């Protein structure tokens, strides 16, 4: 049963990783480890900051 679901679970994990949905959870983990003294950003604030950051430092993309 569990094994049969594994491909779907992997696909779901991949989708969440690649779309950036998981980014906040990862941020929380890192933040907890490095700055336990400071309050982490809220989910909305984190995504807003991340989005602005991404497009204000444009890497590039291909045509």
């Amino acid at each position, binding site marked *: 049963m569990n094994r049969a679901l594994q491909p779907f679970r992997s696909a779901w994990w991949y989708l969440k990783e690649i779309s950036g949905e998981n980014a906040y959870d*990862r941020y929380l983990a890192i933040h907890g480890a490095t700055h336990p003294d400071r309050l982490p950003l809220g989910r909305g604030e984190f995504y807003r900051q991340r989005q602005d950051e991404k497009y204000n430092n444009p890497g590039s993309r291909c045509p």
Partner: protein
Amino acid sequence: MGNRFGRYAVWIGVALVGALCWGVLALGRGETVNAGWLLFAALASFAIAYRFYSRFIANRVLGVDDNRATPGERLNNGQDFEPMDRRVLFGHHFAAIAGAGPLVGPVLAAQMGFLPGTLWIIVGVILAGAIQDMTILFFSMRRDGKSLGQMAREEIGPVGGAAALVAVLAIMIILLAVLALVVVNALADSPWGAFSIAMTLPIALLMGVYLRFLRPGRILEVSAIGVGLLLLAIIGGGWISESSYAEAWTFSGVTIAIAIIIYGFVASVLPVWVLLAPRDYLSTFMKIGTIVLLAIGIAIILPAMQMPRFTEFASAATGGPVAPVGPLFPFVFITIACGALSGFHSLIASGTTPKLIQKESQVRMIGYGAMLMESFVAVMALIAACVLDPGLYFAMNAPAALTGGTAESAASAVSGLGFSVSADTLNNTAANVGESSIISRTGGAPTLAVGMSEIFAAATAFLGGLQAFWYHFAIMFEALFILTTVDAGTRVGRFMLQDLIGNIYRPFANASWLPGNIIASALIVAAWGYFLVVGVTDPLGGINQLFPLFGIANQLLAAVALTVATTILLKMGKLKYIWVTLVPLVWDAVVTLTASWYKIFSSDPRIGFFQQRSEAIDAYNAGEIYTGAQTVEQTAQIITNATVDGVLSIVFALAIIIVIADAARVWVGLIWGRKEPDLQEASYEESQLDVDGSILEPVGAGTSSNRNE
């Protein structure tokens, strides 16, 4: 022992399959060749190249070291620096490099037959394109993610660096104009297309508000909603095109060009969350989804390719009728850039991706592997164009001056080219895809869409074909991510310009200073908008004038990247492996400079800008109307366009020569030992990560405590 034998037996098998497929492609008899041979020839070649060549480069040439901490590990801040799971990073990198380029180029090059394009895509990616991506990714990673421009300045010198900067800005502007022109050609006089694309604006706005305020960070949720609405928009376009609103949604090329220019300006000035970010999600999902669908479609249908191996244009001194006009060498090699060798990738491989790598050895999978995948996309685009009847292909891609614009005149023009297609077939194909006409729909996108729709319709025959839906699905997918590139590219150009002007007038350097934002955006939009409008109104067909400039500019950037890579290899003391980057560099330089030579000096007015200019001037002075033009004003327009394009060709050619000459000076010094190799790598630090391929857990405190060197 037996194990090792087994492993080699597999690779010998792969090599044999590949050789068989290549044999059938090159020598097989019969009228048509099945696309399956091409597919497997490509897959077998890629597999062997990845297993053996990329491994050799990683281990021997670059010397990847998994004990050395990557910038993602050392500088991990959970944002731009972060060791990312290699499969996720592969996806990001692939999505960033795979744009409209690999789809358009192979379609245009198919006029020479399917073999020249196929050979260049497959050989080019293995020996040049993937090498460029992988080496630049590695060198940028060793330098904490420095950009190509920075590396050019530090490793070669200020002259090379400045030429690189000029190349980047110029390519950006020409590229945006060409891509926008492709969209204009696909949407002009098409109420269905115009409506569906217009609907992406309210959809993006809705998604933007949802993602920013209602449900922040729920990207998958909002993307699912967006894709659903997008499909509705395509279906809605079909209704519009059959309703009495059809006329209201029918726009001329100039109107659509102006709309795109206004849109580009607004999207560049507005905050990203309003339009750009949501469209980015939509286009990424559509892009990956459509590529997967195309692969499945081709695998199910295994269509036969109607295009011959070589058309007679492959050996003609002036090439074929489809833009860009010119002989096979060098023009096929600048027409197909993305998919074989694309300088633009070096901008992505230096910058974002290197900061996210977990382990040095992964540059092989991400740099080389992702480029092979993009090349595979180009192969599929080539197949989609070649399954079309060649007569139909030429009726769609020859310029209006040749086809005359009607089905009857196009049919007779095509038979003049040595192919045949009936006027009925042309009318029926147009009706099947829900368009009023498909004659001279140049630019590659409509041809690809027709090819894709035939494959998809055959694969979904049990649903009743749906060819018109699939055609507009393909158009939507191409237009969507071309327009996303236009948004994003304008923005990138705007930042570069603000940075440049900021050196003279300080406030400009601040990206969020509104007047600076507006002025820089306007300048960039005006620059590509100029070329777009010129292209749309060009009496000779804008694609023919602009596409070679785009190809040359892109390959110029590749020359800069390969020059940087060669210089760094020399500084690393890898003289005996220098051919790895030097051979593709020499090839690229020869191709680009030969193409520039043709564009500047050719005495054929369809190829040489200055020949065209002087003939048009003679006609103008004599009070005559130049071939292709309808009026005296159009003759004057041809003179202006040929002058601008010709001068640009000279600038590009000079930039290549300057970069290579400046680097050669450095190389000579290094080889003769007069110059100390000043390698600019970040200092060595032992890696603490032992992850390799396992699903990445959030990285703990152990690695982040020592992140300040």
